């Protein structure tokens, strides 16, 4: 239960920061200050993702410590745990930044779009139901979900058992981060016009 809880906590915390903060920054016009500073737009986009990442790392400790103190759930291996938390947090932070590129001043507009993606991810990524047990079409869809690899990596840390090789999980999470970041860069460029 704890690995899934950590994965879901990261999904919702990391991806929620920028969809709230960027529209508010647009409304307050402080975003204009950032994009007109002598800093590349890519650095601004990366910086926005970092804030979601750092926030999510802090939040991820809540279920981790709760699991440790209340349920006595201890991770078996630190390396997959740390890499799982860090990479999953950064991946969903960049996803949040990507969605926040949509040029609106209302966080609700982005949140509603984002929830259409986030909620289905929970059911196809092996969080509640193991990947092996979901229908084939769900399994195929799960391959395209970063939560699948994040959850798998954190499970490997707690159970010593994973659906994919942890190195594949890491490689897939890095690929998703790169794709989200590249798309976000393009969208911010486009919508800044």
């Amino acid at each position, binding site marked *: 239960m704890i690995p899934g809880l950590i994965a879901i906590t990261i999904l919702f915390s990391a991806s929620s920061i920028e969809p709230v903060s960027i529209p508010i920054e647009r409304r307050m016009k402080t975003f204009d200050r950032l994009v007109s500073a002598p800093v590349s737009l890519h650095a601004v986009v990366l910086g926005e993702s970092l804030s979601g990442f750092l926030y999510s790392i802090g939040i991820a400790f809540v279920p981790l410590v709760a699991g440790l103190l209340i349920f006595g759930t201890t991770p078996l291996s630190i390396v997959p745990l740390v890499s799982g938390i860090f990479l999953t947090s950064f991946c969903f932070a960049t996803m949040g930044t990507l969605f926040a590129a949509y040029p609106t001043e209302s966080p609700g507009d982005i949140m509603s779009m984002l929830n259409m993606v986030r909620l289905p991810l929970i059911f196809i990524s092996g969080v509640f139901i193991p990947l092996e047990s979901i229908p084939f079409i769900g399994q195929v869809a799960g391959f395209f979900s970063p939560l699948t690899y994040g959850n798998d990596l954190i499970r490997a840390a707690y159970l010593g058992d994973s659906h994919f090789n942890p190195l594949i999980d890491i490689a897939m999470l890095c690929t998703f981060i790169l794709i989200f970041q590249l798309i976000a860069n393009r969208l911010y460029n486009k919508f800044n*016009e």
Partner: protein
Amino acid sequence: MHAIEVSHISKKFGLLTALDDVNFTVSKGETFGFLGPNGAGKTTTIRILTGISTPTKGTAKIFGKDIILETTAARKQMGIVHETSNIYDDLSAWQNLMFTAELYTVAKKERELRGKDLLELFGLWERRNDKVHGFSKGMKRRLTLAMGLINNPRLLFLDEPTSGLDVQSNLIIRDVIRDLNARGVTVFLTTHNIEEANLACDRVAIINRGRIAAIDSPERLKKTIQSAQSIEVAFDPADPRRLEELIQIPGVSEVRKQGDKFRLFTEDPSEVIPAIMEYAGDHNSRVLSVTTFGPSLEDVFIKLTGLEIRTKGVSTVD
């Protein structure tokens, strides 16, 4: 090398042409006013000059640096004061200044010294540790201007710097603009306050529907419309019904009632003044005062932008 060099810039948003072959230069140390009605292309021009937006055609250079190809180098030389006081409400005045300085990679010692000087200059030093959300509109505006100057820019973009401010803030900001100009800083001023542009600017450009309608010094622009000369006259007794009689005076093209006075527009005030005196004598009235006015920059603006037709009867321009 010019401070700003805009060459054949066009900007299209789908089918809409926001800027159409715009060309102008701004010399070093010049205060340059950029005027135009809402939707004329002022904001689009500023967004291109500050590297936020990319032109569909043409180039813009800031001190010789192409704003598209050398964006960071060009931006390092400029300070930007946006139309809205875009400051972080949850940070203190000092934190806002230091954050902006870090964005412009100003060294720690320099930014602290400069931050202190600027907060003192703008009368905010005593409130430096207060969060900005408690500041008045004028204080926020002054802080925004201080943030625009923290990197000691050679070129300052000022977008509506004094719009809707109290007298104290207005005076401080105008003094600072004058001081900057005296120190050789180039100022690119966008304003709706035409009198402000008239007083502060060496040259002004008037943009309308995406095209530059005129660029020159305020005085030269005024000379282009002699028909906007006027005579302001006050009669005793003050009778508002004189309006229809005064328009009959030969050489008068338009009469406006302004409080207890009348404003008569003419191409030749010397011909009309004797006729006014004659009119007063015929109507057993006394002329309390007569003042002649040359064309104002606002008159030039109205003529070049065609706002007269759209705002007939309204004597101020937004």
